[in-house]
Structures are given as C-alpha cells and as structure tokens.
C-alpha cells in the first residue's frame, strides 16, 4: 500500500502555522465533540434531578464549585499557563473531563465495585472498592481526552507544558463535576434536612483539604507521559511507550493510595486527624506534580529563549531581564507583584499585560514568522512600555 500523498510531500512545502482546535475534517474532533455532547445530556439530566430534590444544595453547589473553578483558572492565568493555547482548547479539555469522562466513569466504576462485591464480598468493596475502581477507570478516561485533543491539533503541542496544562484542565473538569455530584448526593443522605451544610462540608473536605492533590494533579502527571511520547520521536518506540506507561502508572498509584484505606487506621475519626491524614496522603502527590510542572516549565523556558533569541531580537521588545525570566512564570509573577507594591496597581497591571504580550509575540512569531501578523503585539508592547516606564522611573 502506498503512503498517502501528504506523507510523500516534503515538509517544507506545507504552510507554516498551527492548526486550530476546530477541525471538522478530523475524526478525532468529531469523536471528542460527540462524546462531550453525550456527557452533557447525562450530566444535565443528573443535575436536573438534583435541582428538583435538593434545590438549595444544587444551586449553591453550582455557584461554589463554579467559583472554585475560577480560582484554579486564576492560578493558571497568573502563571501564564493559559497562554499555551487558545481558549477553545481549555474549554474542550474541561468539558471532556467534566462531561465526556464522567459519563463513562460512572458505569465502569459501578461495574468494578459490583464485580468486587460479587467475587469477593461487600465488606471488601466498602474498604477497597474506591481504590480499585476509581484510579484505573478515571485516569484512563481523562487521559483518553488528552490524547484526542492532541490528535485534533497535534502541532499546537510543541512543549511538555502545553500538554500538561491541557491534562490539568481535563482533571479539573472531572474534579469539579465529581465534587458537584458528591455534594448533591451528600445532601440527599445528609444527617440533617439542612441543604447548605453539605455544600460547605464538601467544599472544605473535597475542595480545600483535597483539591490541590486531586484529579488535576493526577492527570498532569499522566499527561507528562503523553507529552514525552509525542516530543521524543528520536527515541525508540518501546522507550516512548514505557515512559508514557510509567507516568500513567505513577498517576494511578497516587490515586490508588489516596482512595485506599491504607493509612486510615493510623488516624482516629476526629476532624483534626482526618485533616492530617489528607495532608499525609496528599503532599506526596503535590510534590510529584510539582516536579513534573517544574521540569515542563524548564523545558518550556529553554524553548521560549530559543524562539525569542531568533524571532524577537529587538531588546526594546524584550529586555535582558525580561528575556531571562521568559521561562520562569513564578519569577515573572514575583516581578509584577513587587512592581505593584512599589509603584502601584496600575504599574502591576501594565507589567502583567506587557509580559503576556511578549509571550504572544514570541508564539505568533514562531508560528507565522515576524511581519504584519505580529505587528499588533509589537505595537502593544511598545505602548505598554511607554505607559509603564514613566510610572517606574525613580523620582528625582
């Protein structure tokens, strides 16, 4: 069988640029969209019942978990992670996690727990059911969405960080919809008729005490494997598969330990002991996720430095100190925070905009080359600098 025509053509013959995430000619796009829409019907139907039975909980739950999502987005935005892709990528990732993956996770988890009850015992399921069913099902389904998104617009994923943020967003979507479902279910079985307490209790336990080391962290780790597989074509296929599998296994193991009763008997049932247990289980997950983020950020920094050095050589667009901090989101954040303390909120806002425009300029220049298409960003940078510089000049 002869290879398709486009594979025979020389790489340099194809237009420079990146694909959008709206790809009606690609099967992966339609599969992703169809499964998200399917999940949407399921989720809406489920919450419609929640609204009818415990309306206060359902409404308050939507508001609380919506605000929780915004808090995560704010952190991502603060670290300039949302600059990695156009908004539709994050919408699709979040929707896959919250709608597509949740739809399939429910019957699979039920089937595994039911099988455990039948083949072992209901006592076994009560203790180990969540650890056996949850991690394998949920990590697999969330990652399936990440893979579909990568298939939809492969050349949007130039760095590990660009895959990790999509993974984190997928995990966040799953986490938020799962938390909302737990909140509504908890209200239906709460030991009081009160419909507000279940929301507050779930926000405390699932949101604040567990939120940082939950699905967003697991899927980040698993996604690193996908990124490594994709971005290291020079390695042998078994090595790439092994790397992807190892990351998945690590995410699974962390999720397993979190769901398991392994350490439960070392802590009594008090609220302080429960909080301690959550910290003991969660901190290793957080540390692992942090290491993956750091490695991805380091690689992303090197990538940005190389792009900036070639495509944006003008130092009035990216100054020396700004160039150094291109790959260090925390340092960039620190600079604008200090600028805010010293020179006021307006200076901080302008510096934030300046940093983002620089990132956009680099990315657009890398995609299309310098020219009319990057002019908007160049003008914006010059304008922002002209506004910012007088504000941060030392007073004579």
């Amino acid at each position: 069988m002869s290879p398709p025509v486009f594979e025979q053509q020389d790489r340099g013959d194809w237009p420079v640029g990146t694909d959008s995430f709206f790809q009606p000619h690609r099967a992966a796009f339609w599969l992703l969209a169809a499964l998200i829409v399917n999940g949407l019907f399921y989720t809406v139907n489920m919450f419609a019942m929640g609204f009818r039975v415990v309306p206060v909980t359902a409404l308050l739950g939507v508001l609380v978990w919506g605000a929780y999502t915004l808090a995560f987005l704010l952190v991502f935005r603060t670290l300039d992670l949302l600059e990695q892709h156009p908004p539709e990528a994050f919408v699709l990732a979040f929707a896959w996690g919250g709608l597509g993956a949740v739809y399939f996770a429910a019957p699979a988890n039920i089937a595994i727990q039911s099988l455990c009850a039948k083949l072992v015992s209901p006592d076994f399921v009560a203790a180990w059911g969540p650890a056996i069913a949850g991690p394998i099902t949920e990590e697999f389904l969330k990652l399936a969405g990440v893979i579909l998104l990568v298939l939809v617009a492969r050349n949007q994923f130039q760095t590990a960080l660009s895959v990790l943020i999509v993974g984190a967003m997928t995990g966040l979507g799953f986490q938020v919809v799962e938390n909302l479902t737990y909140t509504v279910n908890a209200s239906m079985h709460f030991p009081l008729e009160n419909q507000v307490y279940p929301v507050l209790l779930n926000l405390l336990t699932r949101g604040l005490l567990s939120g940082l080391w939950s699905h967003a962290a697991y899927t980040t780790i698993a996604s690193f494997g996908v990124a490594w597989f994709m971005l290291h074509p020079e390695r042998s296929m078994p090595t790439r598969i092994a790397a992807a599998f190892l990351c998945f296994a690590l995410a699974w193991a962390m999720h397993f330990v979190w769901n398991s009763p392994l350490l439960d008997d070392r802590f009594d049932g008090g609220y302080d002991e429960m909080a301690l247990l959550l910290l003991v289980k969660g901190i290793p997950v957080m540390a692992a996720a942090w290491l993956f983020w750091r490695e991805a950020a380091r690689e992303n920094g090197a990538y940005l430095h190389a792009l900036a050095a070639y495509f944006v050589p003008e130092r009035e667009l990216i100054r020396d100190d700004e160039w150094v901090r291109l790959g260090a989101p925390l340092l960039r954040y620190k600079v604008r925070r200090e600028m805010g303390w010293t020179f006021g909120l307006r200076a901080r806002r302008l510096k934030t905009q300046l940093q983002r425009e620089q990132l956009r300029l680099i990315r657009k220049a890398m995609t299309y080359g310098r020219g009319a298409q990057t002019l908007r960003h160049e003008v914006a940078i010059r304008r922002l600098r002209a506004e910012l510089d007088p504000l941060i000049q030392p007073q004579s």
Partner: protein
Amino acid sequence: MRMWHDQRMPEPSRRIPYRTWPGALAVLLAIAAYVGGLSFWDNRTPGSRPLAAGQMVAVGQARFVPANGWEMDVSRSKAGKSLMLFKGSHKFLVTNEPWAGGPDGPLGRQQRFMERGQGLRIDGDVSDFVTSWGLQGKTFAYYGSKLAGRFWQVVDLQRRSLVQIDVYGASDGLNDAMADARSMLESMDLEAPQ
C-alpha cells in the same frame, strides 16, 4: 537598535495534513472495550447470595430475619449501610444512616426524591406504624408506571440513627412480597452489635 545575536533558527511548525481516524478509532475502541467489557462481565456474573433460613441479618444497627425465598443482592448492598434482598422482580432494601435531625427524619426529602427525582406518586397519606417489638416510625405507599411499593422509616434519636425500609416491584405478585416485607419488618430491631 540592539539585537540578540542570531542562533540556529528553530524549526517552525507546519500545517501538515494527517489522519486522525486510526487514533480516534483506537481511543473509541479502548473506551468501548473497557466500559462495555466491564458492564458485560458484571451483568454475566451472578450477584445473588442465598440466606440461611431463620438466621438474622444485620445492616448497621438494624437486624431482622429474612423471609423464605428472599436472596441477598451483593452488588447492591453496602457493608454496614444497606442490604438489598430480592425475590423475583421484587426488592426489599434496608438502609441505615446517621441522623442528627428531628423525630420526623428526612421524610420530606425522601418524598421529594421519589416524586421529583424518580417520577413516582405518593399513594394516600403518611401514617404511623408500630411493630410488635416496639419499633415505630412512619410509612407511606407509592406507585409509578411500572412499579409500586411501600416505604417505612424509623428514627432513633437516642442512637442518632435512621433506618429506612423500602419494598417495591411490579404490581404482579406485590401482595405476597408485601406480606413477606411486613413479616421481615415485624422481626426487626435496632439492637445489632456494633
């Protein structure tokens, strides 16, 4: 104008066409095989467990003697929380949960769940009941397009405990199932060792 010194030009991304259907199909098949396979396996695995005649079974604090011919559905029973028995198409579900509220329990919530969530209708009024062991609470009947049933609720304020008993199934043979359910309820107490 000061410039950064040139370096090797990074490879620009190019919009090279590629096929996604093999990958998309693989993902779809993997999901279908995983979810469908597990559901198929679960459906093919029997979940009934016969119960010894005359021997008490316990759910949390509640314990009772199952009527003859009723079997345990292990997949729909949760250790210490709920026990599902079945006979033919009829189900007998006992749940035990903590309750820190008033003596009426979550009756309103249960009725809202049945009426607004499950599309059932409450048949008549809620009435009180007392068993020969002194177990007392509230009960009501309900019906839907395909099933009918009766719900009992016992609130034990001292133990901060709530026991709910729900028997339901197709109208055909429901009277016999209801008679069995009443006998199981009559045998029930809240003295199960914890």
